[in-house]
Each structure stands twice: as structure tokens, then as C-alpha cells.
């Protein structure tokens, strides 16, 4: 998992060699976000993000160090130090006493300064230190205003994450999700909302009194496709995020659903039942031509694309119960992918095409999120929450967000691909469902 960091690897090897099985249930409350670290063999790397300095005349709305700490903690790779345990609060290099940090077993240290600049600008300087090597790894400066401090914090998290793991950070991405809020007698207000990757700053991008479902990001991050019942029947719409402009794609008698953008952005895989029963089709958005992909009297639905655009993963109950299949588009060769469990659906591949996240029901008869390693065939059930659905994977494969139930309320949950860290996103008003993680943006 780690690309570099010799001291990290040595700690890892030490622990594996001594066969330490860490079964800890540690809850860490950070402004409504409760992270539960479940069992794991490897010890997460201890990191401390020291509060950033600020000597401006006005109060800052956001605590950058707190956001960075929460970002890194959610990945399950890092164990973040609580502020209460910090013995010193360095904000520049000459205040860093490595011995203090070694005593608390901290391996990496993040410090920073926020400096007021002209015209309400704020300069943010941050540094990353390797405590064991007593070496500075990163020093950068960014600037912004009060309104984009969260963006700056996520940028800092991305830089640190990439430096420590070699993998591009996904903290500066967005998520969309659907909410349903009841009001009055049998009336429901449906909304499509967009928020930061940690659930903060939600804004409504669409609302209506008929259901919305299946939001899907185009790979360039500029538009969404989704299903709306505003016409009284399910139809697929494309919404351009910058302008809010919407376009209804041609809809047919029966089902119109499950839109999935091709990697090149030129096609949508969709589900139509116009030919007698639900089948997967590919709509070419340039020519508007429709190609039928499946030909079976069973239900074929929930298509998603492989990263190379050459095959589609989809759900089919042609074998009796819903299972996941893969069709190679150039040859139309079909193979079944899932064999474990009596219900597997809604498959989504990681960006490297190696892992398949899905909704899975096994012998316990409960719907969970599971991941199948397509190389080895091994299936791991990741969640123990209830009625889980709609898994969506961060573009760097680090975390899966999904919809679940907390009591009678729909909420969003998160889990790392190896199942070692689970969290529930802060509750929002209404019933939350169907998260969709953006690609890398900009």
C-alpha cells in the first residue's frame, strides 16, 4: 500500500513479524463525524496535525488543521493525534523538537501558518516533517479567502496523502446524493445535493416533488445524468453543473434508467424495457444512435463501464437471482462474475479495474457492501450495517461511500476497501440515499 516511507514499512514489518492482531474499537468524535476503526493487522501510521497559527484581526470560519486531520483519519491509513495530547504547538521549523514527537510515537508532523494578506486574502503555509528522519518533506504556500479555506484544507490533505502514500489524494472531490424529505400529508420533497467529499457544504442542485434516482458523474466532472419522475414516468436527464441547464434524453415506453457514462464521455449505457423487458443499451450522445447490448428475457440492469471502456459490468437475474455479469463490447462475449451469495448487484469497478464493489446478500440474508478482487476471485464483505446499497468509490480507490439505514433514517456510510475503517457521515435533514463520487476535478 505504501510507496515510500522506510520507517513506515519497518513498523509494518515489525508488527507483522510479531503477529500483532489489533482489535481496537476506537471512536473519535470530530464535529459529528464518528470514525470507528475496526480490527486490523497493520497499525495505522501516527500523524499529528498541529493547529495552524493565525494572528489576523478577524476570526477564521474554518479550522484547517482539524479538517486535514479528519481527512487523513478517514482513510484508515493514519492514526491522528488528538489536540489534547499534543505537548507543544510548533508553527515553524525552529519550534519543532523531534524528541517530543518521538516520545508520543508520532511519525509524521504537519504544521502551518495562516497569515492575513491584502484584500481579505489569507496566505496559508504548511510543512510536513518526517519525525524519525528529522527531515522536512514538504513546504508549500497557497492563498485564498475565508470562503475557500475548506478547499485549501483539502488541497493540503491531498498533498500530504500523496507524499506519504504515492497515491493521488481524493479530498478535493465532490459527492452528490439524493434526499427525500416528507412534509404534509404524503408529500415528499426530493433533492439532488452536492457536497464536499467529507459531506460538508451541501448545496441543492435540483429539487422537485417527484422522485430522483441514479445520479452519475461524467468523467470530466462537468455534468451529471440521473433519472427523474417529474413527467410522471422515469426518464433520464443530463444536468450541466456550471449552468444548471438540463436536457432530457430520448425516453421510451417503459423503463428508462441506470445511466452510466462511458470513460470518453461520448456514450451513456442505459436500461430500457421498450423491447419487452429490461435490457442494457448504449446511447451514443453524438449520433443519438442506440445499440442494444443484452438479449435475454430476464432483467438486465445497472450497467457500469470498465475503465478502458471496452466492457460493461451489469446485473442480471437470467440465472434466477440477481448476479453480476461482464460483457466485452467488441466481441459481445459474456461471462458471469459473481458466484458467492444469493444476490449480487450494482457493481462498480475501481479505476484500475481490479476491484468490484457491489451490493451483496449472503447466508445471513442481509444486504451488505462487498468487494471482489477480480484477479483472485476472492469476495470480502465490508460492512455490518443494515440494508446497504449504492456503493460509490473514490477516484483513488481509497474509500467506498454507500447508503445505509440508521434506525428509520437513510444515511451515508463510508468504508475503506479493506474494511478496516468505517464511518457514518454527519446526518442531514431528510432521508439520504444514492451517493455518487465525482472524478478528480479540475
Amino acid at each position, binding site marked *: 500500500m505504501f510507496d515510500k516511507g522506510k520507517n513506515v514499512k519497518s513498523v509494518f514489518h515489525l508488527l507483522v513479524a510479531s503477529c500483532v492482531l489489533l482489535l481496537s474499537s476506537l471512536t473519535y468524535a470530530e464535529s459529528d463525524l464518528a470514525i470507528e476503526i475496526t480490527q486490523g493487522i497493520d497499525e495505522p501510521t501516527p500523524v499529528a496535525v498541529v493547529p495552524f497559527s493565525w494572528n489576523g484581526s478577524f476570526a477564521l470560519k474554518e479550522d484547517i488543521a482539524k479538517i486535514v486531520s479528519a481527512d487523513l483519519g478517514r482513510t484508515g491509513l493514519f492514526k491522528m493525534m488528538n489536540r489534547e495530547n499534543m505537548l507543544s504547538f510548533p508553527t515553524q521549523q525552529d519550534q519543532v523538537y523531534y524528541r517530543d514527537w518521538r516520545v508520543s510515537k508520532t511519525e509524521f508532523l504537519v504544521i502551518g501558518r495562516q497569515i492575513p494578506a491584502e484584500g481579505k486574502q489569507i496566505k496559508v503555509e504548511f510543512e510536513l516533517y518526517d519525525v524519525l528522519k528529522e527531515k522536512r518533506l514538504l513546504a508549500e504556500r497557497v492563498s485564498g479567502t475565508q470562503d475557500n479555506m475548506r478547499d485549501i484544507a483539502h488541497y493540503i490533505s491531498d498533498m500530504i496523502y500523496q507524499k506519504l502514500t504515492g497515491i493521488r489524494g481524493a479530498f478535493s472531490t465532490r459527492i452528490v446524493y439524493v434526499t427525500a424529505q416528507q412534509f404534509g400529508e404524503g408529500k415528499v420533497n426530493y433533492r439532488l445535493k452536492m457536497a464536499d467529499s467529507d459531506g460538508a457544504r451541501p448545496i441543492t442542485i435540483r429539487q422537485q416533488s417527484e422522485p430522483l434516482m*441514479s445520479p452519475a458523474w461524467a468523467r470530466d466532472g462537468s455534468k451529471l445524468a440521473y433519472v427523474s*419522475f417529474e413527467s410522471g414516468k422515469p426518464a433520464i436527464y443530463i444536468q450541466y453543473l456550471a449552468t444548471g441547464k438540463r436536457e432530457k434524453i430520448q425516453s421510451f415506453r417503459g423503463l428508462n434508467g441506470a445511466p452510466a457514462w462511458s470513460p470518453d464521455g461520448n456514450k451513456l449505457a442505459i*436500461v430500457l424495457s421498450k423491447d419487452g423487458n429490461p435490457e442494457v443499451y448504449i446511447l451514443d450522445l453524438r449520433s443519438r444512435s442506440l445499440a442494444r447490448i443484452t438479449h435475454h428475457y430476464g432483467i438486465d440492469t445497472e450497467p457500469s463501464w470498465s475503465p478502458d471502456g471496452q466492457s460493461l459490468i451489469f446485473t442480471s437475474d437470467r440465472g434466477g437471482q*440477481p448476479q453480476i455479469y461482464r460483457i466485452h463490447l467488441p466481441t459481445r462475449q459474456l461471462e458471469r462474475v459473481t458466484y458467492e451469495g444469493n444476490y449480487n448487484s450494482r457493481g462498480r469497478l475501481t479505476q484500475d479495474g481490479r476491484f468490484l464493489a457491489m451490493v451483496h446478500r449472503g447466508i445471513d440474508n442481509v444486504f451488505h457492501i462487498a468487494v471482489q478482487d477480480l484477479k483472485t476471485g476472492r469476495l470480502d464483505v465490508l460492512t455490518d450495517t443494515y*440494508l446497504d446499497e449504492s456503493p460509490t468509490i473514490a477516484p483513488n480507490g481509497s474509500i467506498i461511500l454507500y447508503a445505509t*439505514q440508521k434506525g428509520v433514517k437513510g444515511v451515508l456510510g463510508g468504508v475503506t476497501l479493506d474494511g478496516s475503517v468505517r464511518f457514518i457521515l454527519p446526518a442531514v435533514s431528510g432521508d439520504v440515499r444514492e451517493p455518487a463520487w465525482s472524478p478528480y476535478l479540475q
Partner: protein
Amino acid sequence: MRASNVTKAVALALSVAWVAGCSTSGSSSNTGETAGSNNGSTQGVNQGSGVSGSSMSDVANLQTVFYFDFDKSVVKANGFSDLEKHAAFLAANPAAQVVLEGHADERGTREYNMALGERRAKAVSRFLQVNGASASQIETVSFGEEKPQILGHSESSWSQNRRVELKYVSR
């Protein structure tokens, strides 16, 4: 498969007998659920659609919500009788139109449940056609799990959500 063919034959026989008997249905004491108990938008439902011949009162007391067992798209037998009467009404009133709205309970994935809802609506549509309605009088729409009748995570809620709602529409 064979069982449902037998059922269809019986239903057909019964409905033929009923039509031949030409009686107005005064015997429906079973009110069941009415269309008004849904929480979705009503697409131009108009109880006084003024169809000629028999009046809407023939069907006003009939069950309009039909339920299904888990993972099944076969109408439960206790709905056959009223469905046959709806079919007979449609057969006698070519101008009458219905929308069949299919639903699924919350378990499983949403798009798959859209397909399940449609399967159920189509099953009711076939039943009506076998019993005299014409395909041009019937439209089917699926709402999957998106419009539950009851919110809840137990079989008592789920069983009420696995349903098809029959609604008469004005043209």
C-alpha cells in the same frame, strides 16, 4: 409455470361465466384499499370520467391495490376477483383507461427494483387482458421502491409496499 396456466384458465372460465351472467356487481363488500391511499402524484384520475354504458360506480368499491409475495410478480389470489371485475368493466367500456403503477419493497438495489415493479405491473396488465381488457386501455409505470406506501424495515411494511396500484384515468 403450469400452475399459473391453470389459474389463467380458471380465471378465464370464471370471467366468461360472469360476463354471461350479466349481473352488476352488488356483492363487493370487500372495499380493500382505495386509490386515494397512495402518496404519489395522481395522473389525472377522474372518477367521473363519463364513460358510456355502465358507470364508474360499478368499480368504485373494488380493490385498487394488489399485493405480491416477496420476489414474486404473481398477483396474490385474493386479488383475482376484483381484478376480474375491473377487466370486465374495461371490456364493457372501450373508452375507459387504466394506469397500473408497479412497486417493490426497499430491499435490494433501486434500479433492479424498478424492473421488479414493472414486472408486477405487467403481470396485472396481462391478467386484465386475459380477462377481457384490451392492451390499448392499459398503461404500466414502475416506481420501484421510490414511493413506498409505508415506511419501515420489517415484513409488515414491506408486504404493503410490494404492490400494483390500479388507477382509472381520463383520456
